[in-house]
């Protein structure tokens, strides 16, 4: 029972790291980016390539996955995404679906369609007993890493100069520009960091979520649920939403396997109808 709960928490934490970048781009910058999962997939494949084929240590692989996807995110933001901020939602949907299709086909072509696994170091494959609860070391690692990231994000967004600049740039780009904030750079950095975190999540989650070329579409709906249900007022909303989603999904699959993902979708529809701003959101100011 408690093991199940901890598994759910680990899963939820993972979803949070994967989706928090989307919370910034979709929630704050109002950019419908369905290609967010593609960045996570790239992060996963980078780790697989580094760790399995080149023998890079696992932890270094994680860091490199973050850096690689952040760079890719920054590159795409500056070259492609920058043109679609001002376009309609339909255009953004089309554009990002196009990117997803390209990423999936490209990965399929270069890496093959079979599922990939990261070779974990031996120390992560053990289980421990903690307060009478058995938990895998890997899941514990996920909980710790993701928890640290969540706290760090909250700190950066609310307490630092960059955080207030980002919030200002999002609330009113024109006034922010007038105050001397370089909105383009702020957006690019936020986008890159979000992509990087997705990449890190993809690398960490390759073992739990499964990594294959269908990844971006399979998990797209989960990311979107986290962001829309959690609302975008703060980082806490998506965090709580992903924990709930993670626990509900793991528990649902364990206790009522016949219903599958059905429950999740239904709950999402009900929540969105009941509170379009999200469970923990505030009413839109615009």
């Amino acid at each position, binding site marked *: 029972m408690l093991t199940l709960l901890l598994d759910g928490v680990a899963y939820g934490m993972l979803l949070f790291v994967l989706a928090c970048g989307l919370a910034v781009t979709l929630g704050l910058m109002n950019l419908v980016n369905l290609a967010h999962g593609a960045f996570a997939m790239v992060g996963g494949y980078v780790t697989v390539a580094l760790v399995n084929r080149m023998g890079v240590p696992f932890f270094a692989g994680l860091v490199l996955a973050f850096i690689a996807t952040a760079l890719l995110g920054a590159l795409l933001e500056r070259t492609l995404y920058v043109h679609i901020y001002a376009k309609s939602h*339909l255009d953004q949907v*089309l554009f990002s*679906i196009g990117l997803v*299709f390209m990423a999936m086909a490209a990965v399929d072509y270069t890496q093959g369609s079979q599922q990939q696994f990261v070779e974990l170091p031996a120390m992560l494959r053990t289980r421990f007993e903690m307060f009478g609860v058995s938990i895998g070391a890997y899941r514990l690692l996920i909980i710790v890493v993701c928890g640290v990231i969540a706290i760090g994000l909250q700190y950066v967004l609310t307490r630092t100069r960059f955080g207030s600049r980002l919030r200002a740039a999002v609330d009113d780009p024109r006034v922010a520009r007038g105050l001397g904030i370089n909105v383009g750079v702020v957006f690019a950095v936020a986008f890159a960091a979000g992509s990087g975190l997705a990449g890190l999540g993809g690398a960490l989650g390759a073992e739990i979520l499964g990594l294959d070329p269908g990844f971006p579409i399979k998990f797209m709906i989960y990311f*979107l649920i986290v962001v829309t249900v959690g609302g975008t007022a703060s980082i806490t909303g998506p965090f709580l939403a992903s924990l709930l989603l993670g626990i509900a999904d793991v528990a649902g699959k364990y206790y009522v396997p016949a219903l*599958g993902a*059905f429950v999740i979708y239904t709950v*999402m*529809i009900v929540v969105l109808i009941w509170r379009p701003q999200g469970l923990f959101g505030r009413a839109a100011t615009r």
Partner: protein
Amino acid sequence: MSDVRAVTAARLARLSRWRPAEIVFWIVVAAAYFVFPDRHNLLNEIAITGLFALSLDLILGYAGILSLGHTAFFGSGAYLAGIVTKYGVTDPILGLLLAAVAAGLLGFATSFLVLRGADLTRLMVTLGVGMVMYELANRFSGLTGGADGLQGMDVGPLLGRFDFDLGGDVAALYSLAALFLVFLPIRRMIHSPFGWSLRAVKGNALRTAAIGIPVNARLIAIYTVAAGVAGIAGALLAQTTQFVSLDVLAFHRSADILLVLVIGGTGYLYGGLIGAAVFKLMQDVLANITPQYWEFWIGLVLVALVLVGRERVTGFPALIASRFRGRRAGKERLAEGAVQ
């Protein structure tokens, strides 16, 4: 007052007149059937995709509802047609009507979900409905065949006389005829005051409500109609291929159909049909070159289309047409002035 009404009615009637280009379009469609006798299966697919895209255009292009789950109706139409055929209702036309009604009912039931919220909420809700339908079809495998697909459907002869053949001669004719017969009332509807009120809702829902048009009722109506039409398209696919798989409810189909519509252009009746022809021909060519990875090129087309600007690509024929029309309208105005 009655004068204004008469003038408005005359103007609406003029707008709804068949243009020469439209008549040429349908003649070309009919000619395609006879010119390419060995490509009837492709023609059948184009007709079905065109009808599906047309139904999406009704809600996206005219009413402005962004949907990522339109396959829910396409798929339910396909499954319903398949299941009734399997259990004895083998007449294709009856199956088609049943599928339309069922998909329409589903559309009516879910239309209340898309009334609330902005683009993003609608996107999520329609996506969610599509996923729920997929899960349902997957779970109730006793009825739908689950991941193996629905097998053993034996469609009876069309009109009690023409059997569906492997070359798709009857199938293509059937789908094209269905497309045309569904197109006619849709065209009538779009040019009616009802159709114009939809465009008003898309333009500005608040102002439309202010001039006394019931926005929600309009949205429910068009969503229901579009769902029914999508159901017909799905049923056509099921009957002409004699097989239904989970693929009819898959997410990528929703994305594909958006692309089809966008290639042809949203908000005018022929956009979906032209898009379907372009898309299917493109798929045909690309799948021959790179059978497994043609999705890459589809993605590339989408990205390029958005970056270049949809209106610049798809608006090109419309631009020429409006120039042409503009000149003629100018002449008519001059003539009217001379009479007065």
